[in-house]
Protein backbone atom coordinates (compact mmCIF):
# COMPACT_ATOMS: atom_id res chain seq x y z
CA UNK A 1 0.00 0.00 0.00
CA UNK A 2 1.48 3.30 -1.03
CA UNK A 3 0.24 6.72 -1.98
CA UNK A 4 2.88 9.29 -2.77
CA UNK A 5 0.85 11.91 -0.95
CA UNK A 6 0.41 11.48 2.77
CA UNK A 7 -2.94 11.21 4.49
CA UNK A 8 -4.86 9.69 1.61
CA UNK A 9 -6.08 6.77 3.72
CA UNK A 10 -3.44 4.04 3.33
CA UNK A 11 -3.57 2.96 6.96
CA UNK A 12 -7.38 3.08 7.21
CA UNK A 13 -7.68 0.87 4.16
CA UNK A 14 -4.81 -1.46 5.13
CA UNK A 15 -6.42 -2.05 8.54
CA UNK A 16 -9.74 -2.90 6.92
CA UNK A 17 -8.03 -5.25 4.48
CA UNK A 18 -6.39 -6.96 7.45
CA UNK A 19 -9.86 -7.44 8.94
CA UNK A 20 -11.24 -8.90 5.70
CA UNK A 21 -8.29 -11.09 4.78
CA UNK A 22 -7.49 -14.60 5.96
CA UNK A 23 -4.07 -16.09 6.60
CA UNK A 24 -1.97 -12.99 6.22
CA UNK A 25 1.07 -11.41 7.73
CA UNK A 26 0.83 -7.67 8.26
CA UNK A 27 3.80 -5.30 8.00
CA UNK A 28 3.75 -1.62 8.95
CA UNK A 29 6.60 -0.07 7.00
CA UNK A 30 5.79 3.51 7.94
CA UNK A 31 8.47 3.39 10.60
CA UNK A 32 8.79 7.12 11.29
CA UNK A 33 5.10 7.70 11.94
CA UNK A 34 3.49 4.29 12.36
CA UNK A 35 -0.26 4.39 12.97
CA UNK A 36 -1.56 0.96 12.03
CA UNK A 37 -1.11 -0.36 15.58
CA UNK A 38 -3.83 2.03 16.76
CA UNK A 39 -6.38 0.07 14.74
CA UNK A 40 -4.97 -3.45 14.98
CA UNK A 41 -3.82 -3.40 18.64
CA UNK A 42 -0.82 -5.69 18.36
CA UNK A 43 0.43 -7.54 21.40
CA UNK A 44 4.23 -7.41 21.20
CA UNK A 45 5.86 -10.85 21.35
CA UNK A 46 9.41 -9.96 20.38
CA UNK A 47 11.42 -6.72 20.36
CA UNK A 48 14.62 -6.27 18.41
CA UNK A 49 17.07 -3.37 18.63
CA UNK A 50 17.71 -1.56 15.37
CA UNK A 51 21.17 -0.19 14.86
CA UNK A 52 21.06 2.64 12.39
CA UNK A 53 23.96 4.67 11.11
CA UNK A 54 26.91 4.91 13.48
CA UNK A 55 27.90 8.11 15.23
CA UNK A 56 31.39 9.62 15.27
CA UNK A 57 32.71 10.34 18.75
CA UNK A 58 35.82 12.44 19.44
CA UNK A 59 38.07 11.54 22.36
CA UNK A 60 38.98 15.03 23.62
CA UNK A 61 41.98 13.72 25.52
CA UNK A 62 43.60 12.65 22.24
CA UNK A 63 42.33 15.49 20.03
CA UNK A 64 44.94 18.12 19.06
CA UNK A 65 42.30 20.38 17.48
CA UNK A 66 43.88 20.32 14.02
CA UNK A 67 40.47 20.67 12.38
CA UNK A 68 41.10 18.07 9.66
CA UNK A 69 37.93 16.21 10.60
CA UNK A 70 35.84 19.34 10.30
CA UNK A 71 37.29 20.14 6.87
CA UNK A 72 36.76 16.61 5.60
CA UNK A 73 33.18 16.14 6.76
CA UNK A 74 30.83 16.60 3.84
CA UNK A 75 27.75 16.69 6.03
CA UNK A 76 28.76 19.73 8.07
CA UNK A 77 28.40 17.58 11.16
CA UNK A 78 31.49 18.89 12.95
CA UNK A 79 31.35 22.52 14.09
CA UNK A 80 34.13 25.03 14.72
CA UNK A 81 34.47 23.82 18.31
CA UNK A 82 34.91 20.29 16.95
CA UNK A 83 31.63 19.14 18.40
CA UNK A 84 29.69 16.53 16.47
CA UNK A 85 26.06 17.20 15.67
CA UNK A 86 24.34 13.80 15.93
CA UNK A 87 21.54 14.93 13.59
CA UNK A 88 23.95 15.75 10.79
CA UNK A 89 26.47 12.91 11.30
CA UNK A 90 25.79 10.12 8.80
CA UNK A 91 28.34 7.78 10.38
CA UNK A 92 30.47 7.50 7.24
CA UNK A 93 33.81 7.34 9.06
CA UNK A 94 35.73 9.89 6.97
CA UNK A 95 36.68 11.83 10.12
CA UNK A 96 38.03 8.60 11.63
CA UNK A 97 40.46 8.02 8.77
CA UNK A 98 41.65 11.61 8.43
CA UNK A 99 42.36 12.09 12.15
CA UNK A 100 46.15 11.94 12.65
CA UNK A 101 45.76 11.17 16.36
CA UNK A 102 43.25 8.33 16.10
CA UNK A 103 41.02 10.36 18.37
CA UNK A 104 37.76 9.54 16.60
CA UNK A 105 35.81 6.32 16.63
CA UNK A 106 32.47 5.28 15.21
CA UNK A 107 30.04 4.08 17.81
CA UNK A 108 26.88 2.16 17.29
CA UNK A 109 23.63 3.85 18.08
CA UNK A 110 20.25 2.31 18.67
CA UNK A 111 18.01 4.12 16.19
CA UNK A 112 14.81 2.29 16.87
CA UNK A 113 13.12 -1.01 17.54
CA UNK A 114 11.51 -3.69 15.41
CA UNK A 115 8.63 -5.69 16.82
CA UNK A 116 6.89 -8.93 16.06
CA UNK A 117 3.39 -8.98 17.45
CA UNK A 118 0.25 -10.98 17.62
CA UNK A 119 -3.00 -9.44 16.39
CA UNK A 120 -6.48 -10.81 15.91
CA UNK A 121 -5.87 -10.70 12.17
CA UNK A 122 -2.50 -12.41 11.95
CA UNK A 123 1.09 -11.86 12.96
CA UNK A 124 2.33 -8.31 12.52
CA UNK A 125 5.84 -7.06 11.85
CA UNK A 126 6.32 -3.41 12.72
CA UNK A 127 8.85 -0.96 14.08
CA UNK A 128 9.44 2.40 15.58
CA UNK A 129 12.28 4.63 14.45
CA UNK A 130 13.40 6.94 17.22
CA UNK A 131 12.23 10.46 16.41
CA UNK A 132 14.69 12.26 14.19
CA UNK A 133 16.83 9.24 13.36
CA UNK A 134 18.10 8.50 9.89
CA UNK A 135 18.06 5.41 7.73
CA UNK A 136 14.42 4.51 7.91
CA UNK A 137 14.95 2.53 4.67
CA UNK A 138 17.15 0.05 6.50
CA UNK A 139 14.59 -0.39 9.27
CA UNK A 140 11.88 -0.92 6.63
CA UNK A 141 14.04 -3.66 5.14
CA UNK A 142 14.27 -5.30 8.57
CA UNK A 143 10.47 -5.14 8.97
CA UNK A 144 10.10 -6.73 5.54
CA UNK A 145 12.61 -9.50 6.36
CA UNK A 146 10.82 -10.25 9.60
CA UNK A 147 7.47 -10.38 7.80
CA UNK A 148 8.87 -12.74 5.22
CA UNK A 149 10.31 -15.08 7.81
CA UNK A 150 7.00 -15.18 9.67
CA UNK A 151 5.11 -15.83 6.44
CA UNK A 152 7.41 -18.73 5.59
CA UNK A 153 7.11 -20.19 9.06
CA UNK A 154 3.33 -19.85 9.18
CA UNK A 155 2.93 -20.84 5.52
CA UNK A 156 1.05 -17.67 4.66
CA UNK A 157 1.24 -16.62 1.06
CA UNK A 158 0.12 -13.05 1.52
CA UNK A 159 1.94 -10.19 3.19
CA UNK A 160 0.05 -6.92 3.47
CA UNK A 161 2.39 -3.94 3.74
CA UNK A 162 1.35 -0.47 4.89
CA UNK A 163 3.93 1.81 3.30
CA UNK A 164 5.08 5.33 4.13
CA UNK A 165 4.20 8.41 2.05
CA UNK A 166 6.61 9.83 -0.54
CA UNK A 167 8.72 8.07 -3.15
CA UNK A 168 12.16 8.11 -1.48
CA UNK A 169 14.25 5.55 0.36
CA UNK A 170 11.72 4.10 2.84
CA UNK A 171 9.14 3.77 0.04
CA UNK A 172 11.62 2.11 -2.28
CA UNK A 173 12.54 -0.27 0.56
CA UNK A 174 8.81 -0.97 1.07
CA UNK A 175 8.02 -1.83 -2.55
CA UNK A 176 11.16 -3.64 -3.69
CA UNK A 177 10.21 -7.13 -4.81
CA UNK A 178 6.48 -6.94 -4.05
CA UNK A 179 3.96 -8.61 -6.38
CA UNK A 180 1.62 -5.64 -6.59
CA UNK A 181 1.46 -2.08 -5.34
CA UNK A 182 -1.89 -0.56 -4.45
CA UNK A 183 -1.73 3.22 -4.67
CA UNK A 184 -4.33 4.92 -2.50
CA UNK A 185 -4.97 8.32 -4.00
CA UNK A 186 -7.55 11.03 -3.42
CA UNK A 187 -9.51 13.15 -5.87
CA UNK A 188 -7.42 16.29 -5.36
CA UNK A 189 -4.90 18.02 -7.62
CA UNK A 190 -2.12 17.02 -5.22
CA UNK A 191 -3.44 13.46 -5.09
CA UNK A 192 -3.33 13.22 -8.89
CA UNK A 193 0.15 14.71 -9.11
CA UNK A 194 1.50 12.35 -6.46
CA UNK A 195 -0.30 9.37 -8.00
CA UNK A 196 1.57 10.01 -11.25
CA UNK A 197 4.90 9.95 -9.44
CA UNK A 198 3.97 6.85 -7.43
CA UNK A 199 2.96 5.09 -10.68
CA UNK A 200 6.29 6.07 -12.24
CA UNK A 201 8.03 4.61 -9.21
CA UNK A 202 6.21 1.26 -9.54
CA UNK A 203 6.91 1.26 -13.23
CA UNK A 204 10.60 1.96 -12.56
CA UNK A 205 10.77 -1.12 -10.34
CA UNK A 206 8.52 -3.17 -12.67
CA UNK A 207 5.79 -3.68 -10.08
CA UNK A 208 2.16 -4.12 -11.17
CA UNK A 209 0.12 -1.12 -10.03
CA UNK A 210 -3.45 -1.02 -8.74
CA UNK A 211 -5.24 2.21 -7.87
CA UNK A 212 -7.89 3.02 -5.30
CA UNK A 213 -9.51 6.48 -5.23
CA UNK A 214 -10.38 7.52 -1.71
CA UNK A 215 -12.82 10.37 -0.95
CA UNK A 216 -13.72 10.21 -4.65
CA UNK A 217 -16.86 12.31 -4.22
CA UNK A 218 -14.98 15.34 -2.89
CA UNK A 219 -14.28 16.18 -6.53
CA UNK A 220 -15.95 13.99 -9.16
CA UNK A 221 -14.25 15.77 -12.01
CA UNK A 222 -10.84 14.84 -10.62
CA UNK A 223 -12.05 11.28 -10.09
CA UNK A 224 -12.98 11.10 -13.77
CA UNK A 225 -9.52 12.42 -14.67
CA UNK A 226 -7.88 9.70 -12.57
CA UNK A 227 -10.10 6.99 -14.03
CA UNK A 228 -9.47 7.99 -17.63
CA UNK A 229 -5.75 8.40 -16.99
CA UNK A 230 -5.65 4.90 -15.52
CA UNK A 231 -7.69 3.47 -18.40
CA UNK A 232 -5.33 5.01 -20.93
CA UNK A 233 -2.37 3.56 -19.12
CA UNK A 234 -3.97 0.16 -18.50
CA UNK A 235 -3.91 0.57 -14.74
CA UNK A 236 -6.72 -1.22 -12.90
CA UNK A 237 -8.82 1.05 -10.67
CA UNK A 238 -9.90 -1.38 -7.96
CA UNK A 239 -11.97 0.95 -5.81
CA UNK A 240 -13.76 4.25 -5.35
CA UNK A 241 -14.44 5.02 -1.75
CA UNK A 242 -16.66 7.96 -0.79
CA UNK A 243 -15.87 10.53 1.88
CA UNK A 244 -17.64 9.78 5.15
CA UNK A 245 -17.02 10.98 8.72
CA UNK A 246 -17.56 7.37 9.81
CA UNK A 247 -13.89 6.71 8.94
CA UNK A 248 -12.75 9.16 11.62
CA UNK A 249 -15.34 7.87 14.07
CA UNK A 250 -14.00 4.34 13.63
CA UNK A 251 -10.45 5.61 14.14
CA UNK A 252 -11.48 7.36 17.35
CA UNK A 253 -13.07 4.08 18.48
CA UNK A 254 -9.77 2.31 17.67
CA UNK A 255 -11.48 0.01 15.22
CA UNK A 256 -11.23 -0.73 11.55
CA UNK A 257 -14.05 0.90 9.63
CA UNK A 258 -15.34 -2.43 8.28
CA UNK A 259 -15.68 -3.72 11.83
CA UNK A 260 -17.04 -0.48 13.26
CA UNK A 261 -19.76 0.06 10.65
CA UNK A 262 -20.06 -2.95 8.35
CA UNK A 263 -23.27 -1.64 6.79
CA UNK A 264 -21.82 1.75 5.86
CA UNK A 265 -21.17 2.39 2.17
CA UNK A 266 -17.47 3.05 2.93
CA UNK A 267 -17.12 -0.43 4.44
CA UNK A 268 -18.94 -2.02 1.55
CA UNK A 269 -16.74 -0.24 -0.97
CA UNK A 270 -13.60 -1.29 0.92
CA UNK A 271 -14.88 -4.87 0.84
CA UNK A 272 -15.47 -4.69 -2.91
CA UNK A 273 -12.03 -3.16 -3.36
CA UNK A 274 -10.44 -6.01 -1.40
CA UNK A 275 -12.21 -8.60 -3.56
CA UNK A 276 -10.92 -6.90 -6.70
CA UNK A 277 -7.40 -6.75 -5.26
CA UNK A 278 -7.52 -10.49 -4.56
CA UNK A 279 -8.79 -11.32 -8.02
CA UNK A 280 -6.10 -9.12 -9.57
CA UNK A 281 -3.44 -10.90 -7.46
CA UNK A 282 -4.78 -14.29 -8.52
CA UNK A 283 -4.45 -13.32 -12.17
CA UNK A 284 -0.76 -12.43 -11.70
Amino acid at each position, binding site marked *: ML*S*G*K*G*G*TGKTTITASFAELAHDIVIADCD*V*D*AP*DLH*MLLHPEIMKTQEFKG*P*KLAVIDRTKCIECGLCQN*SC*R*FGAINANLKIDP*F*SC*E*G*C*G*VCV*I*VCPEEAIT*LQERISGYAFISKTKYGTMSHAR*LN*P*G*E*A*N*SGKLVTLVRQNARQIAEKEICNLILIDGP*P*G*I*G*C*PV*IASVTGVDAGLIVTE*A*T*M*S*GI*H*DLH*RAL*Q*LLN*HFKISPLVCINKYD*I*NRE*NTEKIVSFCENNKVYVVGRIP*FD*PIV*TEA*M*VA*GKTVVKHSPENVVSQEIENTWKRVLSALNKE
Partner: protein
Amino acid sequence: MIISIASGKGGTGKTSVAVNMALSFKDVQLLDCDVEEPNAYLLLQPKIDETKPVYISIPLVDEELCDHCGRCSEFCEFNALFVTPEKVLFFPELCHSCGGCMIVCPKNAITEKNLEIGLIKKGVVEGIELVYGELNVGEPMAVPVIKEVKKQIKSNKTVIIDSPPGASCPVIESVLGSDYCILVSEPTPFGLHDLKIMIQVLGELNIPFGVIINRAGIGDRKIYDFCEEKGVRIILEIPFQRKIAELYSSGIPFVVEMPEWKRKFQLLMEDIKGV
Protein backbone atom coordinates in the same frame (compact mmCIF):
# COMPACT_ATOMS: atom_id res chain seq x y z
CA MET B 1 12.91 34.80 10.01
CA ILE B 2 12.53 31.16 9.00
CA ILE B 3 9.27 29.40 9.81
CA SER B 4 8.95 25.73 8.96
CA ILE B 5 5.74 23.75 8.71
CA ALA B 6 5.80 20.08 9.65
CA SER B 7 3.39 17.42 10.89
CA GLY B 8 4.57 13.86 11.32
CA LYS B 9 1.43 12.47 9.76
CA GLY B 10 0.93 13.12 6.06
CA GLY B 11 -2.07 14.90 4.63
CA THR B 12 -2.83 17.05 7.66
CA GLY B 13 -2.65 20.26 5.63
CA LYS B 14 0.98 21.42 5.74
CA THR B 15 1.07 22.59 2.16
CA SER B 16 -2.31 24.22 2.47
CA VAL B 17 -1.17 26.19 5.54
CA ALA B 18 2.16 27.10 3.91
CA VAL B 19 0.55 28.37 0.72
CA ASN B 20 -2.34 30.21 2.35
CA MET B 21 0.01 31.81 4.82
CA ALA B 22 2.36 32.92 2.05
CA LEU B 23 -0.58 34.40 0.11
CA SER B 24 -1.75 36.31 3.18
CA PHE B 25 1.60 37.88 3.74
CA LYS B 26 3.17 38.37 0.28
CA ASP B 27 6.81 39.36 -0.02
CA VAL B 28 7.89 36.02 1.37
CA GLN B 29 10.02 33.21 0.18
CA LEU B 30 8.26 29.84 0.14
CA LEU B 31 10.45 26.76 0.06
CA ASP B 32 8.79 23.45 -0.71
CA CYS B 33 11.12 20.88 0.86
CA ASP B 34 8.79 17.95 0.21
CA VAL B 35 10.94 17.02 -2.75
CA GLU B 36 9.45 13.53 -3.05
CA GLU B 37 5.99 14.95 -3.64
CA PRO B 38 6.17 18.73 -4.09
CA ASN B 39 2.66 20.17 -4.18
CA ALA B 40 2.92 23.89 -3.32
CA TYR B 41 3.47 24.82 -6.95
CA LEU B 42 0.22 23.09 -7.92
CA LEU B 43 -1.69 25.54 -5.73
CA LEU B 44 0.35 28.59 -6.77
CA GLN B 45 0.98 27.87 -10.46
CA PRO B 46 4.04 30.12 -10.77
CA LYS B 47 5.86 30.71 -14.03
CA ILE B 48 9.16 28.87 -13.60
CA ASP B 49 12.10 31.22 -14.22
CA GLU B 50 14.92 28.91 -13.35
CA THR B 51 15.51 25.17 -13.28
CA LYS B 52 18.75 23.59 -12.24
CA PRO B 53 19.86 20.05 -11.69
CA VAL B 54 20.98 18.70 -8.32
CA TYR B 55 23.98 16.43 -8.36
CA ILE B 56 25.60 14.16 -5.85
CA SER B 57 29.21 12.99 -6.13
CA ILE B 58 29.73 9.31 -6.62
CA PRO B 59 32.97 7.37 -7.01
CA LEU B 60 34.40 6.52 -10.37
CA VAL B 61 36.84 3.63 -10.23
CA ASP B 62 39.65 3.44 -12.74
CA GLU B 63 39.94 -0.30 -13.31
CA GLU B 64 43.39 0.19 -14.87
CA LEU B 65 44.77 1.52 -11.59
CA CYS B 66 42.69 -0.60 -9.22
CA ASP B 67 44.36 -3.73 -7.83
CA HIS B 68 41.14 -4.91 -6.14
CA CYS B 69 42.59 -4.69 -2.64
CA GLY B 70 39.11 -4.12 -1.23
CA ARG B 71 39.94 -1.21 1.10
CA CYS B 72 37.17 0.93 -0.34
CA SER B 73 34.50 -1.68 0.28
CA GLU B 74 35.86 -2.37 3.77
CA PHE B 75 35.64 1.33 4.54
CA CYS B 76 32.18 1.99 3.09
CA GLU B 77 29.66 1.99 5.94
CA PHE B 78 26.80 1.93 3.45
CA ASN B 79 27.87 -1.17 1.49
CA ALA B 80 27.86 0.82 -1.73
CA LEU B 81 31.03 -0.84 -3.00
CA PHE B 82 31.71 -4.53 -3.48
CA VAL B 83 35.10 -5.65 -4.72
CA THR B 84 35.58 -8.94 -6.53
CA PRO B 85 39.00 -10.16 -7.69
CA GLU B 86 38.23 -8.83 -11.17
CA LYS B 87 35.89 -5.92 -10.72
CA VAL B 88 34.53 -3.26 -8.40
CA LEU B 89 30.75 -3.22 -8.22
CA PHE B 90 29.18 0.06 -7.22
CA PHE B 91 25.59 0.61 -6.04
CA PRO B 92 24.84 4.32 -6.44
CA GLU B 93 21.52 4.11 -4.53
CA LEU B 94 23.44 3.21 -1.37
CA CYS B 95 26.18 5.84 -1.71
CA HIS B 96 26.09 8.81 0.71
CA SER B 97 28.78 10.76 -1.19
CA CYS B 98 31.10 10.97 1.80
CA GLY B 99 34.22 10.68 -0.35
CA GLY B 100 35.88 8.21 2.01
CA CYS B 101 36.58 5.54 -0.62
CA MET B 102 38.64 8.06 -2.56
CA ILE B 103 40.71 8.82 0.56
CA VAL B 104 41.38 5.20 1.52
CA CYS B 105 42.31 3.95 -1.96
CA PRO B 106 46.08 3.29 -1.89
CA LYS B 107 46.32 3.31 -5.70
CA ASN B 108 44.50 6.61 -6.21
CA ALA B 109 42.19 4.71 -8.51
CA ILE B 110 39.04 6.49 -7.36
CA THR B 111 37.88 9.89 -8.52
CA GLU B 112 34.37 11.31 -8.41
CA LYS B 113 31.73 12.09 -10.92
CA ASN B 114 28.36 13.79 -10.71
CA LEU B 115 25.09 11.94 -10.66
CA GLU B 116 21.94 13.96 -11.23
CA ILE B 117 19.28 13.02 -8.68
CA GLY B 118 16.76 15.81 -9.02
CA LEU B 119 15.96 19.40 -9.91
CA ILE B 120 15.31 22.62 -8.15
CA LYS B 121 12.90 25.11 -9.66
CA LYS B 122 12.24 28.76 -8.93
CA GLY B 123 9.43 31.09 -9.85
CA VAL B 124 7.61 34.17 -8.60
CA VAL B 125 3.87 34.47 -8.19
CA GLU B 126 1.85 37.16 -6.39
CA GLY B 127 4.98 38.51 -4.73
CA ILE B 128 5.87 35.07 -3.41
CA GLU B 129 9.22 33.67 -4.38
CA LEU B 130 8.69 29.93 -4.65
CA VAL B 131 11.60 27.49 -4.63
CA TYR B 132 10.95 23.77 -4.80
CA GLY B 133 12.84 20.59 -5.35
CA GLU B 134 11.90 17.51 -7.28
CA LEU B 135 13.62 14.20 -6.55
CA ASN B 136 13.96 12.05 -9.65
CA VAL B 137 11.64 9.04 -9.49
CA GLY B 138 13.61 5.97 -8.43
CA GLU B 139 16.25 7.96 -6.52
CA PRO B 140 16.17 7.15 -2.83
CA MET B 141 17.91 10.12 -1.24
CA ALA B 142 15.88 13.26 -0.75
CA VAL B 143 18.27 15.04 1.62
CA PRO B 144 20.76 16.38 -0.98
CA VAL B 145 17.86 17.93 -2.93
CA ILE B 146 16.44 19.48 0.25
CA LYS B 147 19.88 20.92 1.06
CA GLU B 148 19.99 22.52 -2.37
CA VAL B 149 16.51 24.05 -1.91
CA LYS B 150 17.59 25.45 1.45
CA LYS B 151 20.71 27.02 -0.06
CA GLN B 152 18.33 29.42 -1.83
CA ILE B 153 17.20 30.97 1.47
CA LYS B 154 17.42 34.76 1.44
CA SER B 155 18.18 35.78 4.99
CA ASN B 156 16.59 39.23 4.65
CA LYS B 157 13.19 37.71 3.83
CA THR B 158 10.51 35.96 5.77
CA VAL B 159 10.96 32.35 4.75
CA ILE B 160 8.25 29.70 4.97
CA ILE B 161 9.41 26.09 4.64
CA ASP B 162 6.95 23.34 3.75
CA SER B 163 8.45 20.14 5.12
CA PRO B 164 7.74 16.56 4.06
CA PRO B 165 5.70 14.18 6.27
CA GLY B 166 7.35 11.73 8.64
CA ALA B 167 9.94 12.30 11.35
CA SER B 168 13.23 11.08 9.90
CA CYS B 169 16.12 12.58 7.97
CA PRO B 170 14.24 14.57 5.27
CA VAL B 171 12.14 16.25 7.96
CA ILE B 172 15.17 17.05 10.14
CA GLU B 173 16.97 18.54 7.15
CA SER B 174 13.93 20.68 6.30
CA VAL B 175 13.30 22.12 9.76
CA LEU B 176 16.94 22.48 10.85
CA GLY B 177 17.82 26.15 11.37
CA SER B 178 14.20 27.32 11.64
CA ASP B 179 13.37 30.04 14.13
CA TYR B 180 9.92 28.58 14.64
CA CYS B 181 8.05 25.50 13.56
CA ILE B 182 4.32 25.21 12.97
CA LEU B 183 3.03 21.69 13.52
CA VAL B 184 -0.13 21.05 11.57
CA SER B 185 -2.25 18.27 13.00
CA GLU B 186 -5.83 17.07 13.07
CA PRO B 187 -7.99 16.05 16.03
CA THR B 188 -7.78 12.31 15.37
CA PRO B 189 -5.82 9.52 17.08
CA PHE B 190 -3.38 9.36 14.13
CA GLY B 191 -2.96 13.13 14.14
CA LEU B 192 -2.22 13.20 17.86
CA HIS B 193 0.13 10.21 17.79
CA ASP B 194 2.28 11.67 15.04
CA LEU B 195 2.16 15.15 16.61
CA LYS B 196 3.74 13.72 19.76
CA ILE B 197 6.57 12.25 17.68
CA MET B 198 7.25 15.62 16.04
CA ILE B 199 7.16 17.45 19.38
CA GLN B 200 9.89 15.11 20.57
CA VAL B 201 11.97 15.84 17.46
CA LEU B 202 11.60 19.61 17.88
CA GLY B 203 12.49 19.32 21.56
CA GLU B 204 15.77 17.65 20.61
CA LEU B 205 16.45 20.25 17.94
CA ASN B 206 15.51 23.04 20.33
CA ILE B 207 13.10 24.76 17.94
CA PRO B 208 10.12 26.65 19.40
CA PHE B 209 6.79 25.58 17.99
CA GLY B 210 3.03 25.94 18.05
CA VAL B 211 0.23 23.75 16.77
CA ILE B 212 -2.38 24.44 14.12
CA ILE B 213 -5.36 22.14 14.40
CA ASN B 214 -6.74 21.58 10.95
CA ARG B 215 -10.16 20.03 10.30
CA ALA B 216 -11.23 21.10 13.77
CA GLY B 217 -14.57 19.55 14.61
CA ILE B 218 -13.86 16.05 13.34
CA GLY B 219 -12.58 13.26 15.59
CA ASP B 220 -12.24 13.80 19.32
CA ARG B 221 -10.91 16.28 21.91
CA LYS B 222 -7.82 14.33 22.99
CA ILE B 223 -5.41 16.56 21.09
CA TYR B 224 -6.76 19.58 23.00
CA ASP B 225 -6.37 17.77 26.32
CA PHE B 226 -2.85 16.77 25.41
CA CYS B 227 -1.85 20.31 24.40
CA GLU B 228 -3.33 21.76 27.56
CA GLU B 229 -1.62 19.21 29.78
CA LYS B 230 1.78 19.68 28.15
CA GLY B 231 1.52 23.45 27.80
CA VAL B 232 1.68 23.24 24.00
CA ARG B 233 0.23 26.33 22.34
CA ILE B 234 -2.55 25.92 19.82
CA ILE B 235 -1.96 28.92 17.58
CA LEU B 236 -4.82 28.45 15.14
CA GLU B 237 -7.75 26.21 14.39
CA ILE B 238 -9.03 25.69 10.88
CA PRO B 239 -12.48 24.13 11.01
CA PHE B 240 -13.44 21.18 8.86
CA GLN B 241 -15.52 22.62 6.06
CA ARG B 242 -16.42 20.77 2.92
CA LYS B 243 -15.84 24.01 1.01
CA ILE B 244 -12.17 24.18 2.10
CA ALA B 245 -11.70 20.53 1.14
CA GLU B 246 -13.33 21.09 -2.24
CA LEU B 247 -11.26 24.20 -2.98
CA TYR B 248 -8.10 22.29 -2.10
CA SER B 249 -9.16 19.42 -4.34
CA SER B 250 -9.38 21.85 -7.26
CA GLY B 251 -5.99 23.34 -6.42
CA ILE B 252 -7.37 26.65 -5.11
CA PRO B 253 -5.84 28.06 -1.91
CA PHE B 254 -8.78 28.84 0.37
CA VAL B 255 -7.72 32.43 1.19
CA VAL B 256 -8.45 33.26 -2.45
CA GLU B 257 -12.16 32.45 -2.02
CA MET B 258 -12.34 33.15 1.71
CA PRO B 259 -10.28 36.33 2.11
CA GLU B 260 -11.29 36.78 5.76
CA TRP B 261 -8.66 34.11 6.49
CA LYS B 262 -5.85 36.38 5.30
CA ARG B 263 -6.23 38.52 8.40
CA LYS B 264 -6.04 35.42 10.59
CA PHE B 265 -2.80 34.32 8.99
CA GLN B 266 -1.38 37.85 9.28
CA LEU B 267 -2.19 37.93 12.98
CA LEU B 268 -0.67 34.48 13.34
CA MET B 269 2.53 35.68 11.71
CA GLU B 270 2.73 38.67 14.06
CA ASP B 271 2.15 36.34 16.96
CA ILE B 272 4.96 34.03 15.82
CA LYS B 273 7.35 36.93 15.27
CA GLY B 274 6.60 37.97 18.85
CA VAL B 275 7.80 34.57 20.03
